[in-house]
């Protein structure tokens, strides 16, 4: 996290030199200089990840440790998620909500046994940490892990690669987490990621991150992957990009993220409510919402990108695309966006306006590509 800040005001992860050495094209992202792509290019990087394995530097994300007896109950006051019921060495997706039921950030929550390990988005990490300290700092210790890097290895060969250099990961299944040695380096590993593929996220001490990255890159299946392919991979997997597909103005119900809210935290559940905006979310659940996030499959080759207006058969603007682009695995454009609930059924035909021209797009089921998580 912390890392060097250069003259540009941008921070660098501990792997900056490696990215440059690998020919990464560095661009500003969430306050960091990050590789958007390497010489092989976004398309090949994307396809390589789906076919073999890709290595991603996600050290710009915030890693936080919550310690103390009441940590799980405390975190439940900020997220509509079952944290208390999260088993040891298990991980789950979560959302920080605000008082209006909107989403402040999305995060990964892991029960690491004697503490909770939380990973938040780079762009939100300062405010998330401040939010946790302010709201639950009296109930648990909120410790920002500034001395750790985060690497992700994703793709169908990730399991074999990790089994080779970290045999202890062999029996882990999707969303399992464990403290294990990876290539002799003590790491905290979760079998998850954000590409729709099997894979691992590896929290590693910063001073050994380059060594770990080199070891991973020496595996024949592994190539470095930049942010460009990370975005097209998560889009094809139907996963939200915070600040685009979900934000402070979208509730978990509008964002079609109800699956992230376990029954125990929903109205009628044993620990219903008790998080910011719970009343709004309960109302959205009971009465339904006016608009919803859906997948969209444009029917021509024209990429439909973020910001494109969605219009109905009468030419009335009914919604907006929040993420969109070319899906290399699909071999065509893919998108997601918000539409009125009555137009959210799979198969609904809409038009997306691109440079003033309507392009047909159909509401589609996500993920656009099959999830290939390893469930044992």
């Amino acid at each position, binding site marked *: 996290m912390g890392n060097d800040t250069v003259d540009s005001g941008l921070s660098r992860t501990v792997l900056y030199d490696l990215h440059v050495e690998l020919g990464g094209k560095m661009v500003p992202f969430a306050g960091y200089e990050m590789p*958007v*792509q390497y010489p092989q*290019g*976004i*398309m*090949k990087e*994307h396809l390589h990840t789906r076919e073999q394995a890709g290595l991603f530097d996600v050290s710009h994300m915030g890693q936080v440790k919550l310690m103390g007896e009441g940590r799980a109950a405390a975190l439940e006051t900020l997220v509509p998620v079952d944290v208390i019921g999260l088993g040891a060495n298990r991980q789950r997706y979560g959302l920080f909500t605000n008082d209006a039921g909107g989403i402040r950030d999305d995060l990964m929550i892991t029960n690491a046994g004697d503490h909770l390990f939380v990973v938040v988005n780079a762009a939100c990490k300062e405010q998330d940490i401040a939010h946790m300290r302010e709201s639950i700092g009296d109930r648990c210790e909120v410790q920002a892990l500034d001395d750790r890097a985060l690497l992700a290895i994703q793709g169908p060969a990730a399991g074999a690669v990790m089994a080779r250099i970290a045999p202890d990961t062999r029996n882990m299944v999707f969303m399992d987490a464990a403290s294990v040695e990876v290539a002799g380096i003590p790491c905290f590993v979760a079998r998850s990621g954000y590409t729709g593929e099997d894979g691992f996220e590896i929290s590693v001490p910063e001073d050994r991150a380059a060594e770990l990255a080199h070891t991973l890159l020496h595996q024949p299946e592994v190539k470095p992957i930049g942010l*460009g392919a990370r975005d*097209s991979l998560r889009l094809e997997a139907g996963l939200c990009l915070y600040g685009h597909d979900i934000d402070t103005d979208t509730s978990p119900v509008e964002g079609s993220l109800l699956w992230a809210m376990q029954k125990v935290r929903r109205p009628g559940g044993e620990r219903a409510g008790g998080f910011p905006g719970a009343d709004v979310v309960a109302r959205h659940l009971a009465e339904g919402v006016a608009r919803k996030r859906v997948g969209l499959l444009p029917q021509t*080759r*024209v*990429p439909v*990108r973020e910001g494109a207006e969605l219009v109905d058969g009468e030419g009335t603007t009914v919604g907006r695309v929040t993420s969109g*682009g*070319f899906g*290399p695995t699909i071999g065509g*454009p893919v998108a997601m966006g918000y539409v009125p609930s009555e137009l959210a059924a799979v198969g609904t035909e809409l038009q997306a306006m691109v*440079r003033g021209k309507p392009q047909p797009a159909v509401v589609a089921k996500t993920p656009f590509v099959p999830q290939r998580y390893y469930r044992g």
Partner: protein
Amino acid sequence: MSVMKFTKDHEWVRLEGDGTGTVGITDYAQEQLGELVYVELPEIDAEVEQGVEAGVIESVKAAGDLKSPVTGSVVEVNEALADEPGKINEDPLGEGWVFKVKLAEVSGADDLMDQAEYDEYVEEQG
């Protein structure tokens, strides 16, 4: 004899010597854009103006304008790019041409860079 000329926006035009010019983007441009996934071609007979958007070129990353390097009217477009926009990546100065124009009387071609000037310009871009 044909002559290649270049713009600061990394388009090229090959002046064929018969009052027409063939237009495309340079190798530097295709490399900067990355793999192309869609090309919006101008219409036949469309009037194009030097420095003004005549088409759109989209990579995985983003959409970019294709500005016409010269003023004139479109006489032919490279239909093959509709299905294979990657031709621009593979052969930007050849099979990846985008459209052909009949040059206007004042086409602006004289204001463009020649090969040596363009090479120097690209060098400066780093």
